């Protein structure tokens, strides 16, 4: 079992977003970057599948700026065997990212490609499905349960008010949702070992974006609300405001 896990370096979810001077990206000052949280579930699953098979390799791939090497190093410290960084300017174009990943993955031997269900920066939620189409293999998204028996896969995915069960054969693309597993964290030993693991950097030129990012803005600040009152005695006034003023009841 060889697994490939695609990883993105993103601003931490606690980031207070401010728009940079160019008006098309966030101001990077003071922003702490982390591995995309959903990618942690994808990485964990990639590790477990190879461990369960007792043979194979886990390859971590990222598309992004040179700083993404740090995130891949974390993946290596967590247990991945090798990493590839497809170096380019940061892009929010999912088609361009999926094409770059597909070009890299096509030349490799793999059984399972895992990604987080979405990146928490651009929130596009597109790359896993586009990648599967480009590779022409089955894909299940927003997966919270995965059973693999030989080449047969049963995946449970989250849908409104329940779950959908999908069945298909390997090789396949899986996008991971929180709940799929409990991700492990790098051990000190893992961090030391990661320094010796291969991390290859390949400069690429992504395809021209299909969508032009015209601007990025902070949302309009909401008008200050009011404290209706304290305790249960404020309830009648609240309900009346919701009915008469806001007209939402």
């Amino acid at each position, binding site marked *: 079992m060889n697994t490939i896990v695609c990883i993105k370096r993103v601003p931490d979810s606690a980031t207070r977003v401010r728009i940079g001077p160019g008006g098309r990206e966030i101001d990077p000052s003071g922003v702490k970057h982390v591995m995309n949280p959903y990618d942690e579930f994808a990485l964990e699953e990639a590790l477990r599948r190879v461990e369960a098979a007792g043979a194979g390799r886990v390859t971590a791939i990222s598309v992004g700026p040179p700083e993404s090497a740090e995130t891949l190093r974390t993946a290596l410290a967590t247990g991945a065997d090798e990493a590839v960084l497809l170096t380019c300017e940061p892009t929010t174009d999912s088609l361009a990212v999926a094409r770059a990943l597909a070009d890299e993955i096509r030349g490799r031997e793999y059984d399972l490609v895992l990604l987080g269900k979405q990146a928490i920066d651009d929130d596009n939620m597109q790359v896993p499905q586009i990648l599967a189409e480009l590779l022409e293999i089955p894909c299940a998204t927003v997966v919270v349960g995965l059973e693999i028996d030989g080449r047969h896969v049963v995946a449970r995915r989250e849908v409104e008010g329940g779950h*959908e069960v999908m069945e298909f054969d390997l090789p396949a693309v899986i996008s991971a949702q929180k709940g799929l597993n409990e991700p492990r964290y790098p051990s000190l030993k893992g961090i030391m070992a990661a320094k010796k693991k291969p991390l290859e950097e390949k400069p690429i030129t992504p395809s021209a974006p299909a969508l032009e990012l015209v601007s990025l803005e902070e949302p309009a600040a909401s008008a200050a609300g009011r404290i209706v009152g304290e305790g249960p005695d*404020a309830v009648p006034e609240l309900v009346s405001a919701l009915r008469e003023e806001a007209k939402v*009841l």
Partner: protein
Amino acid sequence: MGDVLAVAELREGAAGKPAREVTGLARSMADALGGEAHVIAVGGPGTVEAVSSLAGLGADRIFVAEGADPGPESPDVAAATVSARVTKGDYAAVLFPATARGKDVAPRVAGRLERGLATEITAWSVSDGAITVQRPMFAGKAIATLRFRESPALMTVRANVFSPEDREGAGEVVRIETVGRPRARVTAVEHSERDRLDVAEATIVVSGGRGMQDPENWRLLEDLVDALGEEATLGASRAVVDAGWRPHGEQVGQTGKTVSPNLYFAVGISGAIQHLAGMRTAKVIVAINRDADAPIFSVADYGVVGDLFEILPRLAEEIRSVRRDG
């Protein structure tokens, strides 16, 4: 050049709100582009009957691929069938609802057609024939404006943003065949016991946080949801999901769902930045919290400070009473 295709989603055989919202948006977008509004539906027996009502929202033509299997169609087949229709027509835009199914299928169509897709759009405009859309990024901490460079412009449409209007459309039903072979099959659909709306779709959301103190106390929130009626559902903060008190499907915020209901109750939620990002586009926000300095009050339209265990029962009672009196 200027037709717009809406991809209608059927739930339990009916064309519900997601199908109606994309059809209405296809109508207004087609008007701006000087084209026709088309609908495509891929489903089981009875699909024709289910979608013919969409003519009343301005659909000019309705393409229906009706299969023999009553279960949900494989997303591969849905994507291949929609892609085939797109290449046969002359579409400026293709709209999917931003539902679990729409968000799964739309990128597959983007991959097949190798065209750009904007997900969860909240606004749009047309100038010189080019379509520009707005969508949230960073779970709503930033709003991106994007211009499509090529047609068709593919997009998923956020729930509760665009309301369809009654418009008489020709509604000509055209039967088509499904295309392609499923790489993956949907073999079962499991519904959770309590059949409530998904937090991303409901028009009223009641979310609880750590201030609820114990998972047992969710009965108070459930009672409030019941008082608010069928359009209401439960949400949760990340803290209580991580604590295992509530399922992840209910989580609102940057690592959960971003919601835009008409009315949002934040109960016992202090308002971490990740949570605020996920719910600040709600039309009206009500915060109930013991701590008057909690950040949630900075985004709330209405706040009540105090003991939620005293406030919640009173609130449910008061809402029942006003709903009863009309």
